[in-house]
Structure formats: C-alpha cells, structure tokens
C-alpha cells in the first residue's frame, strides 16, 4: 500500500469518527433541549388538563326550605373506538349484561362503525359506569358529562321547566332564571316555592280533575303580603327528567301561559271599583230581577235572585245583573284604569317565560263593559288574577307574583289599587260568599276562608258554549288576618254532585288544599303563618313535618 493511500484511509477514519461525534452531539443536544422544555413546561400541561374537568356548571334550584328541586348530576357517556374492539359480538354481549337498556342491533351497528369514536349511551350513573369499567373491555371508554336532574320528578315540573344537554335553560324557571343559574360562583338559587305546599296543591288539583273528568286544571298559591309564589301547579303534569316534546299538550302551563275568561271571580273587583269611586254604597239596593238588557242583549243569570239586593248579596249570590249594573256605573275608562292598577292589562311579570298577554275584549262598548263586570269578554292568566287578589290581602294594595325568595329586610313593591275601606268591605263580602253564598263548600271549621266562585262558559266562534266551562274558586285566608291567596281552576269539568260550577267542583278542593297546608302555615293551631313578611319569611310556623 502506498503512503498516499494510507494517508487517505487515515483521513477517512478520522472523518467518520468526527461525523459520528457530531451526530451524537446533535442527538444529545436535542434530548437536552427536550428535557429542559419538559422540566419547565410539563407541570403547566398537567394543570391545563386538570382545569378542563367539570367546565360545565349550573347552580342548583332549591325551595324556600333548602330542598333540592334541580341539581347537576355527574353522568357518563359510554364511548367506543371501533378500530380497537376485539370481538364485536362478545363486547356487545358483555355491555348488554351490564347495561340491559342497550339494544343489541343498534349497539353492534355502532361497534362496527367506520368512525374513529362513537357514542353508545349517554346519561350513565356512576354505578353503571363502574359495572362497565369492571368488564375491562378493549376500545371502550367513558366521557364525563353533567346532566340536569330533578329529584322530585313530576312535582313542580311546569315551574321548574328544563335545561338542555348544553345546560342552557329552555323553559320554566330554568329559562326564567337562566342568567342567575349560570353566573360564576353561584351554587344555588333559593326560590319562593314550598315543596310541601306544592305537593298538597298538585295532589288536590289532580284529585279534583279526576273527580270532575276535566281536561286539566291549574292552581296558584301566593303569600299575598310578599307576592311570593308558594306553589304553582298545572295538570296534567309530566316527569321533569323526561320532558315531553315542545309541542306536547302536557307542557302547557295552564296557570301562566294560558289565558281564560275567569267569570265571576272578577266580580269582587267590579264591586271594589264601584265602592272606590263612590258610585255604589253598601246601603244601596239594586233590582237584579231578570230580565235585564244591555244594548238589546239580555244579561243571563246563573243564580236568579228575587227582589232588591245589596252589594253583599250581589257578590255572595253571584249576580251577573248586579255586576253588570255596577260595571256600567264605573264606565270603560275607569274600568281600564283599575285593570291596569291590578296588573290585568299586561302579562304577569312572573319570572317564567311565556306569561300570557291578557285580552281585554273587542271594544269598550256598553255591552262589553257590562260583561267585563262579571268576568267575560276578557281573558287573562290565572297567576295574573291571583296577583290582583292580593289587593284584598293588603287593604287595597297590589303586589306582583314572584318566584324569588323574599329576603327579610328587602322592600316589597306594592301599589294601591283601591282604598283600604273598599278592599276590606269586599273581603267581608267574600267571607259571606263562603258562609252563606255560592262558596259554602269551601267552609272550614277552624280556618276562616273568604272567597269567590267562578263559572265561565267558554267562548267559541259563534258564541258561548254552555256545556264547556272553566270553573274556579279564589280564596283568601285566614279571613280575619288575610295573608294567602289560593286560586284553583278546572278546565271543562263534567257535572259532579249536581253541577260543574266553581262552587261545586273547585271550592271543596281549595278547602282541602287549605286544610292540608294549614299545619305548615301555623294556621288553625294558634299560629300566625309564615311569619311577618318583613321579618322572617322563610321560617314556617306551626307544625314541622
């Protein structure tokens, strides 16, 4: 070998070792940089991963005593990566053993999907997740989700409404209070609802609907001093955890979203207007003997009276003719002014979506004004009418219904509709209605109820249908120290015990509701109700069950 060749081989050998060293050095440098980066950023990445857990939040809804009405329950979605499934038949069989509600054909179709990941089941409980987890199936995993859960199921379903899988309120309080429920840092929303009273109202309403074979019914219970809605029911109801479709009749909130001609439950307002304006007096007598015509149309009388009667009899015996005469004395303009003061010219401002707009009739002609005097030719929601009745609780002042819990010390917005004297006189007449008038079936031995019956024929194209009615009863109790308003209505009841009027089908049920909730309110036992509205609105007096 020549010297030149030896030198060339030596140079090549040196060059190879240098190149190897260079490559190793570059590799080590890359590893060092990566190690340095991981050392500095590794923790932050873990933190970001942890922070992504439970990003979806929504406050609980609780009743006035802290009982949970709606909460966020942790649930799991079962997912699969079809490419990683070992045996479709075996996997499907094992999953169905753990989760019998899975359908095999659908499950197997999903397990052979061409997609990277497929959802097999949503809304699994932690126990169900554990059962599947213990199977140790390849390609099966879980995604943590949060879902709205309503522990009371059917109870207060219309009031609560629902929230979607994105946890955005869709109906009821879920929508009405959506912003508050999604506000950061808020873990619960305290409402005015009392679950015990809600139950009593719903049970008695359902019983009344069943006994009368009615299409449905609705009820509203207010603390008339604060406007707090203690219970609000619509029948038929549904399980809030499995709400029917948006177009289903079951979702109809008959207390808030529907408007009805209320009939004679409007008469107390007509009499209060007449007294307030001085166009009628308690000493005056009225000729209410049929026939009586307004603009050539006869005012029909459900309870014809003989001889002249006073205002007390007009209300307690429910005279349409008497109410029509008083309404004509009040006149259209002043009638509208009072309706506005009572909150009956606009939709009730309760915190629920879809509050029905009232319809105050086609015109302000004499006939319409007279008919409005006894609750026809105008329609409104039940909750709006219940709000108007607070005028007789607060000596003429009206408070708007609300689902917010009244906090002691907070002011209550009231505005005057009638003088205290006018309101108290009408309240006394309403007591006579229960003692000796059309509302005698609401009479109780230990609790004094003042009330008014209502039986409104439904208006159809072409006139009023004598066979289809809305029968209702409005109660204020205890009459000697008025505090609570209860309004109960049945939609198209069939005759029971000789009639389908409010006095026959609604008044007894209202009395049963009052009897059932009296212990919670401390009534009939020497108690004084929920406590002074300005001091302690939350503490229930009387017997705690």
């Amino acid at each position, binding site marked *: 070998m020549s010297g030149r060749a030896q030198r060339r081989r030596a140079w090549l050998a040196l060059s190879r070792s240098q190149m190897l060293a260079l490559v190793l050095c570059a590799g080590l440098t890359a590893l060092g940089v990566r190690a340095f980066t991981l050392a500095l950023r590794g923790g932050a990445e873990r933190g970001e991963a942890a922070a992504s857990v439970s990003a979806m939040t929504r406050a609980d809804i609780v009743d006035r005593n802290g009982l949970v009405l709606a909460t966020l*329950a942790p649930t799991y979605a079962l997912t699969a990566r079809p490419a990683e499934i070992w045996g479709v038949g075996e996997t499907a069989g094992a999953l169905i053993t753990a989760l019998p509600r899975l359908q095999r054909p659908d499950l197997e179709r999903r397990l052979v999907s061409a997609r990277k990941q497929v959802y097999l089941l949503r809304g699994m409980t*932690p126990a169900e997740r554990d059962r599947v987890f213990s199977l140790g199936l390849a390609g099966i995993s879980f995604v943590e989700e949060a879902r709205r859960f309503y522990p*009371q199921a059917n109870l207060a379903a219309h009031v609560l409404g629902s929230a979607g899988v994105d946890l955005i309120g869709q109906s009821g309080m879920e929508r009405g209070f959506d912003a508050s429920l999604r506000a950061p840092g808020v873990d619960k929303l305290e409402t005015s609802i009392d679950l015990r009273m809600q139950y009593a109202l719903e049970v008695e309403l359902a019983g009344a609907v069943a006994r009368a074979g009615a299409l449905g019914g609705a009820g509203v219970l207010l603390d008339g001093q604060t406007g707090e809605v203690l219970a609000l029911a619509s029948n038929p109801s549904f399980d809030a955890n499995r709400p029917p479709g948006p177009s289903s009749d079951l979702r109809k909130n008959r207390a808030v979203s529907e408007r009805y001609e209320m009939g004679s439950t409007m008469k107390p307002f007509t009499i209060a207007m007449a007294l307030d304006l001085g166009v009628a007096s308690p000493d005056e007598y009225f000729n209410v003997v049929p026939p009586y015509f307004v603009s050539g149309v006869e005012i029909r009388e459900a309870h014809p009276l003989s001889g002249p009667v006073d205002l007390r009899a007009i209300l307690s015996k429910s005279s349409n003719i008497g109410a029509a005469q008083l309404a004509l004395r009040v006149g259209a303009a002043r009638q509208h002014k009072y309706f506005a003061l009572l909150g009956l010219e606009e939709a009730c401002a309760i915190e629920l979506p879809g509050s029905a707009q009232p319809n105050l009739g086609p015109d302000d002609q004499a006939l319409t004004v007279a008919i409005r005097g006894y609750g026809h030719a105008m329609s409104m929601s039940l909750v709006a009418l219940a709000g108007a009745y607070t005028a007789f609780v607060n000596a003429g002042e009206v408070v708007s219904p609300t689902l917010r819990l009244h906090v002691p010390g907070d002011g209550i917005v009231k505005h005057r509709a009638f003088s205290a004297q006018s309101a108290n006189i009408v309240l006394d007449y309403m007591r006579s209605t229960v003692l000796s008038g059309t509302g005698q079936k609401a009479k109780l031995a230990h609790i004094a109820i003042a009330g008014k019956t209502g039986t409104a024929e439904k208006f159809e194209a072409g006139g009023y249908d004598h066979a289809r009615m809305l029968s209702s009863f409005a109660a204020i109790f205890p009459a000697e120290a008025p505090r609570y308003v209860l309004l109960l209505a049945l939609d198209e009841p069939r005759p029971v015990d000789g009639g389908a009027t409010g006095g026959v089908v609604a008044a007894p049920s209202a009395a*049963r509701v009052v*009897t059932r909730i009296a212990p919670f309110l401390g009534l009939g036992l020497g108690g004084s109700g929920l406590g002074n509205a300005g001091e302690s609105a939350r503490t229930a007096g009387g017997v705690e069950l």
Partner: protein
Amino acid sequence: MKRFWFNSLAALMALLLAVALYRAKSEADAVRARVVALEAQIAHTRAETKVLAAEGAVLDSPARVERLAKRHLNMAPPEEKE
C-alpha cells in the same frame, strides 16, 4: 492560567445554578401535582355530595314521606269538615 480558572469557576457556577433550578422546578412540579390531585379530589367529593344531596331530596320527597307515613304510622293528610 488565570483564564482557565475563571472559565472553570463560571462553568461550576452554571452547573450549580442548573442543578438548583432543576431541584426547584422538580419540587414545584411535585407540589403542583399534589395541588392538581387535591383539586381533583375536591371536585370528586363535590360531585359525590351533589349526588347524595339529590338522593336526599328523592328520599325527602313529600309523596314518599306520605306513602311511608300511611304504611308504617297509619297516618293520613288532615281533613276537616264543617
């Protein structure tokens, strides 16, 4: 020679700083991991509390209480007649 010692000292200090930084970072990482674990535990406990509260609400349901009161105590809702 002086330059050699200066370079050696600088290299040593750099090495010491690197070790100190690594240790501090490792400890911070360990603490962060513990915080993350505790936060996860808190979230888990909160979720369990929510489930228990919901179960409690189901058990407190007026319909259930009434059913049990009827069955075991022979009680009934109050009724009143004139």
